[in-house]
């Protein structure tokens, strides 16, 4: 390859963002365009649908904050996913880990004496409980894998069902988390957690309810990058993930690494549960998570190991979800179509990364 041939290209490239940014953005835009065609086919006026989408995703401070809060939960689950994925472990148990974390946070916030703790411990203590519970739930899958070779995809998926049904049980039973039935409200849900246990709002403005979960998540995304790229532990995760046998021969404690990786993935899931509960929902009920764990898993997959990719994917999905819901409610776009469009985005992003890889190999 001659220098003369590459020169004009590099000159042009200087003015453009790198291909790793342009291509995904273009892919998403093209897919959304295809989505509009689908919407037109359902006889919904396309301009109405677009209006509803933009209104739902960006229309006010409140919806923007809601979209970002969604993205925070997605990011947390996705970060856990890529940590485990670095050790070649696939954590599909985010949904269950969220449920376990939500339960732990609720229990501690309501009955753990968190309310009267000083210095922010009132909200940190339930969070810590959720992290610990999620970590234990994730570590369980790691231990099963190390001790008996159980595939972590199977075990985390089954643990998810157990987690979700434990949550159902806990909010159905008054001896667990269900609110006392003496009041008029008899829905299967917990009491609202007290104010001090809720995540402080960043602006203090309830019309844009961004909470402290956002900066915590940004710090954690940086920390994950640091651990994966720079530390001995991150290197060991990678070594075990690439070639477990060679890592074992080199004296790396692969069993410990496997359990730790799953525990970290679970801890992130648990934390996501705590942030959803303490920052947004304030009480535990049936359907507490409604798919955040699985969406986070998809985002983790699409990010292909990059914490920044997780954040980008989470923001995309956060705003898409908010806009999509509004499209459903206001413009009467069938919810099935909204789901189809989201599925198309996932598929086209996956296809895109496949083609990008191929192009790299060919070059």
């Amino acid at each position: 390859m001659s220098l003369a041939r590459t020169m004009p290209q590099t000159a042009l490239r200087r003015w453009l963002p790198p291909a790793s940014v342009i291509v995904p953005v273009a892919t998403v835009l093209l897919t959304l365009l295809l989505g509009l065609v689908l919407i037109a086919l359902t006889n919904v006026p396309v301009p109405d649908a677009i209006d509803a989408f933009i209104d739902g995703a960006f229309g006010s401070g409140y919806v923007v904050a809601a979209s970002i809060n969604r993205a925070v939960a997605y990011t947390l689950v996705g970060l856990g996913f890529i940590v485990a994925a670095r050790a070649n472990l696939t954590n599909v148990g985010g949904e269950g880990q969220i449920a376990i974390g939500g339960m732990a946070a609720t229990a501690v916030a309501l009955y753990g004496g968190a309310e009267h703790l000083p210095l922010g411990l009132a909200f940190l203590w339930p969070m810590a409980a959720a992290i610990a519970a999620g970590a234990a739930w994730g570590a369980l899958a790691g231990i099963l894998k190390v001790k008996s070779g159980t595939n972590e995809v199977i075990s985390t998926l089954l643990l998810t069902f157990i987690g979700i049904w434990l949550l159902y049980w806990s909010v159905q039973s008054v001896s667990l988390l269900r609110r006392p039935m003496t009041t008029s409200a008899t829905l299967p849900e917990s009491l609202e957690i007290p104010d001090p246990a809720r995540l402080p709002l960043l602006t203090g403005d309830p019309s844009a309810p961004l909470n402290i979960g956002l900066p915590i998540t940004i710090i954690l995304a940086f920390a994950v990058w640091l651990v994966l790229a720079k530390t001995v532990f991150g290197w060991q995760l990678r070594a075990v993930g690439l070639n477990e046998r060679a890592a074992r021969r080199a004296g790396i404690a692969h069993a410990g690494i496997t359990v730790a990786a799953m525990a970290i993935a679970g801890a992130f899931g648990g934390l996501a549960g705590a942030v959803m509960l303490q920052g947004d929902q304030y009480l535990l009920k049936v359907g507490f998570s409604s798919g955040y764990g699985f969406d986070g898993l998809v985002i983790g997959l699409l990010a292909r190991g990059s914490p920044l990719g997780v954040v980008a994917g989470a923001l995309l999905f956060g705003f898409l979800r908010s806009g999509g819901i509004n499209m459903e409610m206001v413009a009467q776009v069938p919810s099935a179509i909204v789901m189809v469009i989201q599925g198309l985005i996932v598929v086209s992003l996956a296809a895109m990364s496949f083609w990008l890889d191929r192009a790299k190999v060919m070059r």
Partner: protein
Amino acid sequence: MPPAPVEAPEVPILSLAGITKRFGAVLALDDVSIEVGAGEIHCLLGENGAGKSTLCNLIFGLFPPDAGEMRLAGLPYRPVRPGDALAGGIAMVHQHFSLIPEFTVVDNLLLGRERGILRRAAYSEKLRQLAAAYGLPLDPSARVGDLSVGERQRVEIVKCLVRDPRLLVLDEPTAVLPPDEVDAFLAVCRRVAEGGCGVLLVTHKLAEVKRVADCVTVLRGGRSVATSRRPAADIDSLVRAMIQRDLDTLDTAMASSLGMEKTAAVPAASRRDGARRSDALQIDGLTVRDAVGSLRLDQLTLTVGKGEIVGLAGVEGNGQSELGAVLAGLLQPTGGRLFVDGKEMTGRSPREITALGIGIVPEDRHAVGCIAELSLAENIFLNRIGQFARFGLIDRDTLRRQAQEMMHRFDVRAAGPEAAFSSLSGGNQQKAVLARELTIDNLVFLLAAQPTRGLDVGAVEAVYKQIDAARARGAGVLLISSELDELIAVADRILVLYRGRIMGERSAHPHEREAIGAMMSGHPA
């Protein structure tokens, strides 16, 4: 089946003209031209990395050439998948067997050949005919997993022959065979060629070329550097072309690794000086059963003294892998005990084994010896990356600098310490693994399992120089190899492993070659 229709002699079965293939920055084949005629055995000779396998894979349709033309029986031939090669009458035996061990011989023949109802009887009959015609005795109903390596190779060849090929491509087929089976194999090649089929035989052993080749092409660095129609007469110039230096400068280990009949006449002075030194390694009644309960190692007992190289000869699959895995701490023995320098090491973890001063060069470099996706520096310090930790972060600068020193000391050639390990040649990869294992603190014992497999001549020399240096520093070395000539040239004494037991011991002297060969085939001395 044979004789297949003989082509007109002036039209070669396969002709390649100006074939060029590039992988990224690497020019794997550069303007290579070769012709294989009907009824002739054409040997493709060259060191590892010379482009032999690339050429075979091109012919078999695994990837297309970047430039050049291939013709099959005079007609243009542009395969895009192995199916095209098979349809054109080209059959190939790969370096690694592609048989299903749980299946019988005849079921392996049926693989991919049949739809609907399996015609086992018809294929068994075909198998018997081929066996009689080519001298390939095989029991159609035997389970492949129960067969010896030589028999498995026969199955691979028969698998090709049932297709009535016009051209048979054999990629380093003799690497896995014991000495007496090599002869039988070469005889089969000759018979296949006599039937009118062209044979392209890839090898790096000159002795084989001398015995069967009608024509030889030597590849070096992707170029065809010599061709001869009288290989036996031109053997010296072929060696020069292959390794780019004179035969006289080869030391005995290298000469024997090439299969040259020039093995050590006088043992080195440092060898066999009698006095029994203290033991570096002692293995006492080691027994290993595999998952299904068959005995892989059976009451194996041996010792390796300090400052000696003990060669462990034997056909692959007789327990070498299990012994290596036990010594590496990757496999727990069913019974028996192991001691290193008098200290018990039975049941220790890999980390503890390294701490005891045991270096392991595993037989499967890719699966156990390295992590190919990591960098060279990371692989050199794979077992002690922790020493570069500063507050949990890896100090990349120090890592790079120390790796650079190791590269210099052990002559590991690469673009730099940050180069992907997979980008290194096999020889440099092995030198890096040796560098890591030989610099273990207080090295007492080194296991070198098949350390020169797949390496080119220069790398073989370097590897044995390092192993010899470790011995000179007082370490005991257990050298496992299926290349008997190499063991004779390098080891102080030779033990023979057969079906998980030690069949006997011989001094490493060329005139013991036959006796050792017999023991390798299971005949007690």
